[in-house]
């Protein structure tokens, strides 16, 4: 295009599109750590479509077990991970099957 004004608009548009794309990538994954018998963060809010990955930093085995049966890991050893993609909105309470006082929640909007 010959008109420089248009070029600026197109460049601005492309940059804006790039920023939007980057923001969407960041929102599609989240991490929860398990350390000292605690899920951190204990309450996490994420948009629909997010993949949440749990990592167990304890030498003790833990599980990520949904309270309503929606998802569940096997025993996670030291540095094992478990991932769950949340495709439906809702409140997902979960706990550790070995240490049921370890409770947390993922809220999906």
């Amino acid at each position: 295009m010959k008109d420089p004004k248009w070029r600026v608009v197109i460049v601005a548009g492309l940059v804006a599109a790039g920023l939007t794309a980057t923001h969407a990538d960041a929102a599609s994954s989240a991490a929860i750590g398990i350390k000292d018998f605690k899920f951190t963060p204990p309450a996490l809010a994420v948009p629909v479509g997010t993949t949440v990955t749990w990592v167990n930093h304890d030498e003790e085995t833990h599980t990520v077990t949904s309270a309503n049966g929606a998802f569940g890991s096997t025993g996670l050893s030291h540095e094992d991970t478990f991932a769950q993609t949340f495709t439906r909105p809702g409140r997902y309470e979960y706990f550790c099957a070995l240490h049921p006082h370890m409770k947390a929640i993922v809220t999906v909007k």
Partner: protein
Amino acid sequence: MDHIDRRGFLECMAWAGTGLVWVSTGGVLSSRVISPAAAAEAKPGSFSFVQISDTHIGFKGQANSDPTATLQQVVDRVNALQPAPAFVLHTGDQTHGQKAGAFDTVAEILKGVKTERIFYVPGEHDVFLDGGKEYLGRYGKGTVGGRGWQSFDYKGSHFVGLVNVLKYKGEGMGALGEDQIEWLENDLAPLSSSTPVVVFSHVPLWAVYPQWGWTTEDAGRALVHLKRFGSVTVLNGHIHQVLQKVEGNVRFHTAMSTAFPQPAPGTAPAPGPMKISEADARRMIGVTEVTHVPGQHALAVVDSTLG
């Protein structure tokens, strides 16, 4: 320890106190358990048994890179006891996380124990994945309704194995359940109060440290049925350290793990495996030998470490 006469032995025993003796061989010091059973051998009706706990096969961490090896060392120790123990009690957490093949490995290693029988109760690590299906498939046979609890008699003493890891609820502590408590009441009813009773289960039956799940929420209702007996010994595991408590005629004793130690109550943010060297951990893992001598009110309980 061989070729020492009875007088010398008893002098040694008195000095050792806890039952550990130091032996110097070629300038190298090593410790050996003085078996209370050996001292009691002369008395007819005496017997000894061993408690092994929390073998956690499948675990790999700073305190122990090979729990299979430490379990084998414990088996070697048990096999060196004179006389041999009448039977062995395993108070749970055979496996670490029900890892594939772990139950088989434990069974293989324990085949080498020189004893008449081994009795088992499960730990939460043995049942959390499948509600106990695998464990009970292997060790439910011969237990009440195949549900894991059982009792047996040996030379006039009554032994009761309880399961308190299958009803784990929100607070993460042990629980027995009404049906098991009711069975216990009926099981004890015909016994005279002078019958020595030994109860064994995984999670402690006293409130060691509820914040970490180191208690059984309905143990009180079970202990009521044990109150009338003159001698009750409660043997537990789960906490990977020796702690004892005496309450009237009931003596509570928890065992070390054969795999790794856990921190004393409240001394760490959480009850996980201690992050210490394998050499240090050796001094905090081991096995328990228990001896019954007729006429003595309390059982002789001796804990020995691997290092």
